[in-house]
């Protein structure tokens, strides 16, 4: 299970925990949780358009914040729902770089069974940690 929603840490908004055996997998799981927040049928989001996202940040949790925020930006600016296909992260504390290949398609209310519009990623409880031999992230989305 790469992510699960956690009602215990947010009432009005949507909180999730995501996991990955690598940092890259964690970011892909987090993108899946974001998509699942907006669509009841994320598997119906076809990979018709591809985009490359490049980001850098000093801190890992804020890199995840920026990555998810990019996906939210494309949802509004281009009406795209997106899967994260591959994510590559390199660097070290103080200078992380991310290159992500994402793909998806224009929002189709009939097929995508839309749920709630995500406004933003918050800093509430935001964290990325390596624990029990896997990467774990906590994110609260403003909806």
């Amino acid at each position: 299970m790469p992510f699960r929603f956690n009602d215990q840490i947010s009432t009005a908004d949507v909180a999730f925990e995501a996991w990955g055996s690598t940092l890259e997998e964690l970011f892909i799981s987090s993108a899946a949780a974001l998509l699942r927040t907006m669509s009841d049928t994320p598997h119906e989001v076809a990979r018709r358009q591809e985009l490359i996202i490049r980001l850098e940040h000093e801190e890992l949790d804020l890199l995840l914040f920026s990555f998810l925020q990019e996906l939210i930006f494309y949802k509004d600016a281009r009406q795209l729902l997106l899967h994260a296909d591959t994510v590559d992260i390199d660097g070290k504390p103080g200078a992380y770089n991310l290159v992500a290949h994402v793909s998806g398609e224009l929002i189709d209310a009939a097929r995508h069974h839309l749920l709630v519009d995500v406004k933003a990623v918050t800093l509430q409880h935001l964290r990325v940690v390596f624990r029990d031999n896997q990467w774990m992230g906590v994110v609260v989305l403003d909806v």
Partner: protein
Amino acid sequence: MSLPAQLRKISDTIWELPVTYKEGMLVPARIIASESLLSGMEAGVFEQAANVACLPGILKYSYCMPDGHWGYGFPIGGVAAMDPENGVISPGGIGFDINCGMRLCLTNLTEAEVRPRIRELVDQLFNAIPTGVGCSGSVRCSRNKFRQVLETGSRWCLRNGYAVPEDLEMTEEGGCFAGADADACSEKAIERGVDQIGTLGSGNHYCEIQVAKPENIFDPATARAFGITIPNQIVIMFHCGSRGFGHQVATDYLQTFLKVMTRTYGIKLHDRELACAPFRSPEGQAYFAAMKCAANMGFANRQVILHRIREVFSKLFRRSPAELGMDMLYDVAHNTAKLEEHLIDGVKRQVLVHRKGATRSFGPGMPGLPDCYRESGQPVIIGGSMESGSYLLAGTAGAAATFYTTAHGSGRTMSRHQAKKMVQGRTLLEDMERRGIHVRSASYGGLAEEAGLAYKDIDLVARVTEEAGLSRRVVKLVPIGNIKG
């Protein structure tokens, strides 16, 4: 839930956390609530209200309104006034949906005239007002024109045929925050919002056809002053904000403030979500100018939606909006920071009031109100869930202590996932239909998340604002039709 041990009862509606509750608190935190509402608040509300009390320059108290609940940064329902000279501005005290707000429009129609056509009406409204995830609007404008929207708000709508002059008079700040500067906004924010004028969004955003039933009028004289003059009069209430543009402005400046808050200004806080900068700093002033652009986008968004609502009613009832008496009653913002004059320890001074999920509630005679509301006080619109109804209230002199602020809604008590586990969207829709509320929603799942059981008792919230002296009830408005994103 157990309440913090240090919470002291000041009165039946005021509860206080002293400055000793948490290291760094500069002022006490005050929760405005009845015992019943207080006992339903999450522990996070008290922590967040205490965190706000640590912000540099905060004056008097960190407040939480009766509909308060656990948010991010400030609690939802959080209010704080800062000294503009040595205090901070924080996007976490305004929210991502800058100038999310409520608008109420009158009609001279009655329930008897509208109910037989409610399905048609709701369907046509649903078609005219884009709703749901990532929706874009019918107003097409270039980026340059959008910058004009950002700097002039409802005035742009008036110039472009989406408003009548009286609409601006009935909007907080005349529908335009002065000093908005589009150059303070990122290209990303502009790209995100340029196609979203006139869109409702989703979540708790809605447009509702409501009835003012005679038995729900608490104050007939003020109701008349507000234009509620006919038994079972139909009004239209809607709730939305600045859409993706405002969300991006908040996100951009949250990141800017994170970079400079400690490094440049030496500010350390309990919660990163309260990232801030001194109000008079270059970053603080840039955010204030951009936030005003988002506030203006919020006003323009609601103005275009009102225009579409008038078009729908006019077409369906074959009368002009003027003939249908479709005058705006008022528009209130509930996610802003504003420079206002308030009495602080007996001295009138300018302060920066942050309201996050909280409504301005100016009392009778206060400057800034339309002449027609000088005696009554400002109309205050508090939205409930789509099942429970909403309230029209009036601002009071007693709200001075909270910087003339009252509640904004009923406040969630249950997470969205929990609500969906307990209610099925289609079942809820059919049940509401049986109860005389016709609903169209972009999503059954989204509808279930907004079920009435997920919210506090709006009757109690409205009553407590009155008991606390923050606003007084004028009329409860009950829904007969609703569109949701």
